[in-house]
């Protein structure tokens, strides 16, 4: 059994019994990266020297302190759109290829306080725009279950690294499914928290009204540990919510008797593969066996989610990415004589095509004469989508469906057709538009590729989401299977 097959709670006990050291954990991470990252290509930057130094320091503290951080000595990987002080942060974009942040994101500060150890930065779609990690300017991450398949995206590096056992857990970010979809494709657990649960300070902004940082882990319990550490109000993010953070670990009771589950017919209908549908129906049987009840419901505006999302997210992105102008940081083109040409050449040379496409779509949707027809219209439809969820949550505790319409697709299969790529997000995107929390947990395999079960909760009710996910996980063993590399 590999070291990272143990849960955080077990690793902590092993540390305190001195069966292992923090240095062993960090060694395990870099050894595994050495062995498999040539194939998986999940990491963009390693922080090996500092990680080993920190491990030694923590090893010296074992047995000498009264209290230990919740993640004491735990190695973690970080998606490369979360800024890390003095550690290169690229957003997988040429425009930030040599960018060394001058401050830490709030989640990094919280991980530091919890005494976790950063192993390195993980590949992603450029500026988190994509569903396959293929838009990265630097490398194509592979799915550890099948190296010809995509790991999903945009947090593809984070999910692949956890799946491949390079790190026991990682942070990702989710704007339209970017944590849950790669978690489903790679057979791991990924949670998008309620909008406002986790501070976005230091998360390079893509679509500010949708972005949220969240944990990617092997088990639901580990996921709860990580969320516990990163949650909470932050004066540096005015959209972080002043809502009490409950004890997530204590929510993992295994008891879901009487739980009311809603299953939207739109999530099992047209466009959803037979494998995804059947794995969800099988999961519902498992949950019924544990005492839960389920009924079919409707989220009538589901099909409008993709159009709504791409208008709103691209509009917000067009404003957020205006800051990359070659003046204060990042890449600057040498091929310009005047300031305005410098802006244009810098951005033309620094951004990839998917990013340019979305900046232009957003600029168009916000431009004079089109604002009402596209941007405002999408905001109004967002209200309808949000209300769909509110109506269902009046009667039910959670909503369940597949995380993705199909298992992971082949590298290169969808990258040339933006609309086909966007369609892959149909089951995850509305959750971001409504701002509610949702998790993906492993629920089966199709042709050797993992499938994910999506459990969606009420605003700020991650506890119930975790309770259901944990009960399901304990009753199945999909999460125990590992890819052969």
């Amino acid at each position: 059994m590999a070291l990272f097959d143990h849960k955080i709670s077990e690793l902590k006990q092993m540390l305190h019994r001195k069966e292992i050291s923090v240095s062993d954990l960090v060694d395990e991470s870099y050894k595994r990266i050495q062995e498999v990252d040539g194939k998986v290509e999940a990491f963009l930057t390693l922080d090996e020297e500092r990680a080993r130094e920190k491990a030694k320091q923590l090893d010296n503290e074992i047995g000498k302190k009264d209290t230990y951080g919740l993640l004491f000595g735990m190695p973690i990987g970080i998606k490369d759109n979360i800024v890390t002080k003095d550690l290169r942060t690229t957003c997988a974009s040429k425009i930030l290829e040599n960018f060394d942040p001058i401050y830490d994101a709030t989640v990094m500060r919280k991980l530091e306080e919890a005494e976790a150890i950063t192993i390195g930065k993980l590949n992603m779609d450029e500026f988190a725009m994509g569903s396959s990690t293929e838009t990265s300017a630097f490398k194509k991450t592979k799915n550890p279950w099948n190296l010809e398949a995509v790991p999903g995206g945009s947090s593809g590096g984070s999910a692949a690294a956890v799946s491949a056992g390079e790190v026991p857990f990682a942070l990702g970010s989710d704007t339209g499914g970017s944590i849950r979809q790669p978690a489903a494709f790679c057979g791991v657990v990924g949670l998008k928290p309620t909008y406002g649960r986790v501070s976005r300070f230091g998360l390079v902004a893509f679509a500010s009204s949708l972005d949220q940082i969240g944990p990617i882990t092997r088990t639901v319990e580990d996921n709860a540990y990580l969320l516990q550490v990163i949650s909470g109000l932050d004066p540096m993010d005015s959209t972080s919510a002043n809502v009490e953070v409950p004890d997530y670990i204590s929510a993992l009771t295994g008891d879901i008797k009487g739980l009311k589950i809603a299953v939207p017919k739109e999530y099992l209908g047209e466009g959803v593969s037979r494998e995804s549908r059947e794995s969800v129906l099988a999961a519902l049987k498992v949950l019924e066996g544990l005492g839960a009840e389920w009924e079919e419901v409707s989220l009538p505006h589901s099909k409008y989610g993709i159009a709504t999302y791409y208008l709103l997210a691209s509009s917000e992105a067009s404003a957020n990415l205006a800051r990359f102008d070659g003046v204060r940081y990042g890449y600057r083109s040498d091929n310009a004589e005047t300031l305005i040409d410098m802006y244009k050449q810098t951005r033309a040379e620094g951004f990839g095509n998917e990013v340019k496409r979305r900046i232009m779509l957003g600029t168009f949707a916000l431009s004079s004469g089109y604002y009402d027809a596209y941007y405002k219209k999408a905001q109004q439809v967002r209200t309808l989508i949000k209300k769909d969820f509110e109506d269902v949550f009046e009667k039910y505790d959670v909503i369940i469906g597949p995380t993705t319409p199909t298992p992971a697709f082949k590298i290169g299969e969808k990258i040339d057709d933006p609309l086909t790529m966007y369609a892959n997000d149909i089951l995850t995107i509305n959750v971001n538009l409504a701002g509610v929390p949702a998790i993906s947990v492993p629920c089966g395999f199709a042709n050797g590729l993992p499938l994910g079960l999506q459990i969606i909760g009420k605003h700020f009710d991650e506890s119930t989401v975790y309770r259901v996910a944990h009960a399901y996980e304990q009753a199945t063993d999909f999460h125990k299977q590992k890819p052969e590399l």
Partner: protein
Amino acid sequence: MSRISKEQVKHVAHLARLAITEEEAEMFTNQLDAIITFAEQLNELDTENVQPTSHVLDMKNVMREDQPEPGLPREVALKNAPDQKDGQFRVPAILE
């Protein structure tokens, strides 16, 4: 009928400060036209009396005490500057 013309794409690229070639303008026109056409399915919905949602949480104007704090030291702020001179960011000529 196409929803966006090549001339409009060039104008949008200018507004977004993106230099694009003729071939790119062609490609983006086709792709953006397909995306905008797809997005027009939203017109099937009557949203006459629907309030727009810009933000999902019910919060407004988050206030805090206005307490002075130290700013960034100049050398830190300039750390990632592509070009600098005399403690300032340097840019190409603004006037032709």
